[in-house]
């Protein structure tokens, strides 16, 4: 077993993340575009980020779970049945409403998801 890592940060702020579409419910460590525990990675759109639970700590590995929809503000996860990312993050409902404004590649993608 790994030895416990002493908590360096005095107060760990926890951001509750819950996808309004599929319900996945996790505690994340950061919300924004510059996760402090992996300084090489910058996100284009503010997202909920946790330290990667599957890698040993201190490796700078992160796990991005999802973001708030840019239109309606609902929290959605990165699963393609819950959200669409194109420059920004959209919940699937809002994306469908805006379908005409997207390039054709995205339209096709959306139509395919709709079929499912």
């Amino acid at each position: 077993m790994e030895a416990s890592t002493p908590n360096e940060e005095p107060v760990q702020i926890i951001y509750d993340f819950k996808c309004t579409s599929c319900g996945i419910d996790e505690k994340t460590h950061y919300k924004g575009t510059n996760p402090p525990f992996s300084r090489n990675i910058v996100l284009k759109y503010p997202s909920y980020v946790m330290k990667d639970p599957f890698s040993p700590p201190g490796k700078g590995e992160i796990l991005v779970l999802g973001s708030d929809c840019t239109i309606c503000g609902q929290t959605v996860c990165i699963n393609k049945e819950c959200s669409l990312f194109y420059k920004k993050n959209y919940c699937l409902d809002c994306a469908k409403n805006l379908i005409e404004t997207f390039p054709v590649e995205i339209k096709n993608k959306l139509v395919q998801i709709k079929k499912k």
Partner: protein
Amino acid sequence: MGRSPSPGRSNNYYKRRRSRSRDRDKDRYKVRKTSPGSSTSNRIEEDFSFTYYKRELNKIILSSNESNTVVNNLDDFWVFLKKYEATLKKAGKPIIDYDPEENSDESSQNFSKFHCINFTSSIKFVDTACYDRDRKKLDKKLFQAFMNIVSIYTDFKNKEKFEKLRKLRQAQKDLPVAKYRNEIVSAVQNERVVVVAGDTGCGKSTQVPQYLHEAGFQSIACTQPRRIACVSLSKRVAYEMLTQFESKVGYQIRFEKSKTADTKICFITEGLLLRQMSSENLPNYDVIILDEVHERHLMGDFLLGILKCLIHSRNDIKLVLMSATINIKLFEDYFSAESAVVIQVPGRLFPIQLHYKPILVEDKPTRDDRLDPQPYVQVMQLIDNKYPRDERGDLLIFMSGVQEITAIAEAAQQYAEKDKKWIVLPLHSGLSLAEQDKVFDYPPDGVRKCIVSTNIAETSVTIDGIRFVVDSGKVKEMSYDSTSKMQRLKEFWISKASADQRKGRAGRTGPGVCYRIYSEQQYNDMESFSTPEVSRVPLASLLLLMSSLGVSDVRRFPFLDAPPDDAVENALLELKQHGALTSNEKLTALGRTLANLPVEVCLAKTLVLGAATLPPHKLDSALALAAALGIRSIYTTRAHRDFECENARRPDESDHGDPLTLLSLYCAWLREKRDTRGGRAWCRRRGIEEQRLYELTKLAAQLRNLLQDNNLMEAPEPASMSSSERALRHGQMKQLKDARRQFKQKAANDLKRKKRLKVDSWEIVDENTNADDDVIDIRDVEFRMTNDAARIQSLIAGSSASSGRDLVMLKVVLCRALYPQVAVADNFNHHKSISEQLYHTWSKPFVYLHPTSYFGKLPRTLQLTEADIHSDLPVSLGFDSKLPVSSKHQILCYLSLLETTKPYIVNSMRMPAAQTLLLLAHSIETNIGFTRIVCDSWLLLEFPYPESGLNLLLKAVKLRRRWDALINRRIADATPTKSVESELEKEKLPKISYDETQHDLSCDMSTYMNSEVYYTIKRLLPGDLKVIYAGYDEAHPSIEPNPFDETFVCRPHEKKGGVYVTDNVVYNCVVDTLWSAKNYEETYSEPWKCSNCELTVCLSPVERLQHTHFTCSAKEEKKDVEAPRSSREIKPNAKEYVCDVCKVTLYLTPVEILKHKKGCKMK
């Protein structure tokens, strides 16, 4: 709990990636059709690849000083990149794809795949200034294009991890227990005791602790009956809680823990939680979960009782019992006063067809009691005929024991030879883990696994994919007879609960079929539930633990099922015999020390006695010996059948018996480890399971820590290494670590590949054992990591006790720890064949030597030869016994009795009879002349030569007293006392070093054990016992001063007559026979001449002793020199005494009074 698949990645992830990229190809293809202009700079070299820049790019990535996904998986990344490039090339897409123009139009119609990716990388470009004219320069722009691929990789990895998380959560949600989450949580919040009943696979073991933790409970203990389950559950739960790299979830098992101050959920063995129950040790748990309570293990049952009491005094603790859906009412009723709430979680069970006696077997009694494998083979045939090959589903056969499994597996294998439709796999706990794991592997298509198992597959091991179950209805179970102190391995009919459990194994993955080889009537006749352990195991360890936890009256403890009364009484007697309890059942200091050592009482006692008696550098021999007796047999099944193996072991066998042979083999193995780089071949040649020797090493090290923790052994000073030694060791460690890494890598790779079984895997056993010589022996690597050369050398030096005083002391220590487990040979053994050699033990007459034991094979070593028998006894002694007189009588000291086909003595060691008995017997009774001595009301020793018995007894009594003092001192030193006075008292005592005392004792012990005395030995039968004692009327007058122990005040024996001269020796209660009376007359009516002074007078044996001990002038002078009177303190038995001669008032003991008188008279 069942085995859960390892949390590692199980899918083939490159395969998955390929299909993903194919999707991407499709998209890209469309892209090209709709917007042919979007790809711009595709004129660049057709065969461009970023791999040309691998070195420079790696340099830049690695120089960024920050770890990230790419840095951590560099090799993986380049594999990804190659595949990515290949995909692009195939689709005719450019490899270098620059960033799309950033434009403000949010919903731009200009599509770029990079817009779909949330990740960017901030790794800065560094000019590597490496210019190659044949290539495009790696400039900032090209680097940016490369970074785009990095982002795609990061995104890909993120999705992969997210998917893993999502699947995990889905799997948790799909568990049957998930639907009861709220119900369970609110029950625990509102009630004192909650019972969660659900069958294996419902998820209770992994989920309930998490539910409670998430509901706000801060310190959750969850017990498991098995150590291995604690470790695997804590790993699994930590993984599910996404804290596998933290210590929020931990475990605690004997000798090992991962628990820290941060730990919120702790999986702990039942035994260890029990040990925490003494009030000062109990951690601040708010919930205690007892898992698998239906298994009814001894410790689990006891824990239930303790907790039932505890929750009345501790309102802040909640109790959760988790059980299979067996006998729930029992637990509900047990906690009815605490109004336990029961929550039942239905399992995921598919319908199961049930067939009784599927094959018509004639119920004729088999002639030789041998198992008929035909019904089992015919069920296989039946399955072949009835179920198409392409329908999957494996077969699980439940047999009672290893022999039965082997018989069935052989027959099944024969059947399978025909058309290779079956893979036959045995499963029992005697197999190595690797062999056990095979039952989880996959058979090829169209082939079924046929697993032949003990009841291990009933609850503890869960195998997926079982569709057919065959139940023999039998189980082999250990039972214990506390009166004869014998374990019995016997075959029983299983209980209804077990039968149902076995049947249920067929319906876990789909509808199944269960064939019961027995009749429905038989099923109806079965007991409802299996016998709980408390009724069929030795109770001494448990009662000792209870006593140390402060249970005042063990007889009135509220057990779920009370153990049989006589089992409790016999265990209490055993503890008294061990000196762990006083005669009125109070815990002694020794008892407390023994209770602190979490091993069997006998082994704990070996350790404590060893720690007190053996010098530190020889303590390893006691540790290794205790460990060797504490692990399972080191021998393989081949070891005693294969002549070659027996021959190979012979040089290392010890003619002292099995325990010392074990020790000697262990030392030989250690030497092999020291001298060569192997051990595996060495073990194979001797039929030894090398794994057991590693276990032995580990256990011995753990026991050593345990002794150190209990202050019974000094922690070793860190060995000082010279710098060159240190460098050498450093180099070795590096090599070993590399080897271990390689091994782990390989193991991980093996795991990724789905394991396919070969149809002829039955043969694999041999292939494996021979083929593995060239691969890394991970156990050897780990052994060498924890034991450097110096350590191995010191283990060898410390553990070997092949001759001389060391051997004597080790044997005496072990024998004292095992006493009264000794056996004497039957009088007629020399007329009988090897297998008919009979022995008698204190607890059970008529037992045999186990055929695989040292003496079982060579019983003649124990018999007297013609030369050993002293036949020319002077007639004048009048000795008339027909028994052989010899100085070479031996008894066997043994670890246990086990009844299989016959009652057997297991693990025995030879000891000189009279010396051992007089030293260790709990009660010793003599006649007036010390020529007839009865030990433990069981064995009669007769000494034809006058005074020879007396002298031996006297030596024994004195040695025993010195030894006891040493042990008591060790225990007292190990136990920190609370009062200042007693600490001061300790200070006052003379500080003779342990070394010196131990050395003196071992010299004298060794002389004593080898002393030559002629005697006969006879087992007393109940009839003999009726007439051998004089009875109370014949009480002997008190002996003062007492030459056996001057501080001991004599008192009469209430029943047998005579007088106690020490707390275990009664003088003059044994009646004389014709010869001994005559012998006494003739010896003691003669005037006796003291060899030291001039005294010549008629004295009885006791009077002679009194003279030599107290009044003989020669002795007096000597003694005065040794101990000057001025330093004497007032002894507890001192009395006020006014001397008639000198008229001085003194406080003296009777002995001192005598001395004073004599001194005064002389003036």
